[in-house]
């Protein structure tokens, strides 16, 4: 396939991959924090239910989750377009891993600081917002960026539900021209480039945090 027709397709596919991944990560970040807070809250039934949910989703392959959400949920009345489903799938998957990351930093959090905050008269909510969250966020940041690379590497799963992401663009180009090298090698290079950028970002973040705050 001529570069003139392949490049715009690759650009479109990359844009779709990045958009879906970023939207999924953003959604997953918020959901993950919520899940972590529930789990560390020890509310009887709900915390256990969340623990079970996290355990199941962590064991579910992206492709299987994609088929469950996109083909399965509509049977219960929740119809979704392929793009919305893709974002939701990525968000569901990454939220449970992000929940574990948040939970680790929340559990590791020095109790002394919380006690001091309470002694100073702060409520739980205020203490969380002003003392816990900023530090937990910094501690989690490298792991969160690492999770972002995992999201990018898992994003081709949405090709299975028809979303025209970078992988699907390559497959489509191949089945049209019967020439696989150009599309697949180009797509691979793009994926590797994006992941390498994220890895650099993660290392840079770690260095900055340690430099500025003395510790992770």
């Amino acid at each position, binding site marked *: 396939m001529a570069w003139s*027709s392949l490049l715009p*397709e690759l650009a*479109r596919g990359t844009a779709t991959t990045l958009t879906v991944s970023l939207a999924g990560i953003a959604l997953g970040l918020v959901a993950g924090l919520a899940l972590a807070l529930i789990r560390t809250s020890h509310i009887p*039934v709900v915390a*256990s*239910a969340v*623990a*079970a*949910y996290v*355990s*199941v989703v962590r064991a579910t392959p992206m492709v299987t989750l994609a*088929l469950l959400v*996109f*083909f399965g949920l*509509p*049977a*219960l*009345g929740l*119809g979704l*377009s*392929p793009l919305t489903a893709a974002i939701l799938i990525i968000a569901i998957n990454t939220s449970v891993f992000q929940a574990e990351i948040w939970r680790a930093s929340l559990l590791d959090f020095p109790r002394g600081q919380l006690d001091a905050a309470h002694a100073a008269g702060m409520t739980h909510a205020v203490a969380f917002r002003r003392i816990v969250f900023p530090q937990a966020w910094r501690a989690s940041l490298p792991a969160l960026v690492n999770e972002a690379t995992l999201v990018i590497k898992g994003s081709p799963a949405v090709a*299975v*539900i*028809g979303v*025209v992401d970078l992988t699907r663009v390559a*497959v*489509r180009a*191949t*089945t*049209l021209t*019967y020439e696989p090298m150009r599309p697949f090698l180009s797509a691979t290079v793009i994926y590797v480039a994006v992941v390498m950028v994220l890895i650099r970002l993660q290392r840079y973040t770690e260095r900055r945090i340690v430099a500025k705050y003395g510790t992770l």
Partner: protein
Amino acid sequence: MLRKLIAAFCVITVAALVPSQSRAASLEEIKKRGYMVVATEDNYPPFEYIQDGQPAGLDHDLYKLLKEWAGAVQVRQEILPWQGLLAGVVSGQFDVALSAATISDQRAQQLYFTMPIAEATHYYMKRKGDTRIQAVKDLSGLTIGTQQGSSIHQRLPEVEALLQKTGGKLGRVSLYASYPEAYQDLANGRIDYVLNSVVAISDVLRKRPNEFELGQAVVPIGYHAWAVKRGNKELRDYINQFFNEQRKNGNLYRLQEKWLGRAFPDLPWEAKLPGNRPMPE
């Protein structure tokens, strides 16, 4: 661990008690709410596929005509892989499978089909110059490729019986998400023949005449048609009215010539099971 299992069990029990939402919208409801949702496959040339980022194919041209014809009723289209399409119609997520679905006995149990849009007799296609295969009986023991969830996939027992009659047997079966992937593996040599509707095969042969060759028919005559959920009689008749008009004004035949390479003027005026048997009531 035990608590997790109990929690999971509770969730599943509750979920199991939720009734399946499988209400498809009737024609009246569609007219009242002002729109109809149709579902089309993403990669089934020449009927429906994506070219340069745009939908193309016979079904897409028919979709444009339907939008005009339906007038005040909006027609919204979802494009998705085949494996979720008919299930979506049965569950009520989509009103019409605007797709070249093959009419089959098993599907007729859960769907009503419109009048046919093309013949769907299944032929085999082989690599050009593959002299091992001269007739259907030579397919014995060779690897077959077809689409997962397609009607030919479900009718493989018929193909097996056919081969057994001439003392042969069905070879290994490779199932693909879409036909273009099967064609590619045929070119690669991973499979020996592809079973697909003659119309789709003719399209591939036009595009890649040096790679493949047409074989013979393996099953009795069948048809491609659109589908609605079983019970949705008015919606099916509504679509049939649309097709009626497109046949009277020649649009359907014109589009068949354009996309399928030939017109099918003698198609039945209502859905028929393979072998021209009447649909069940």
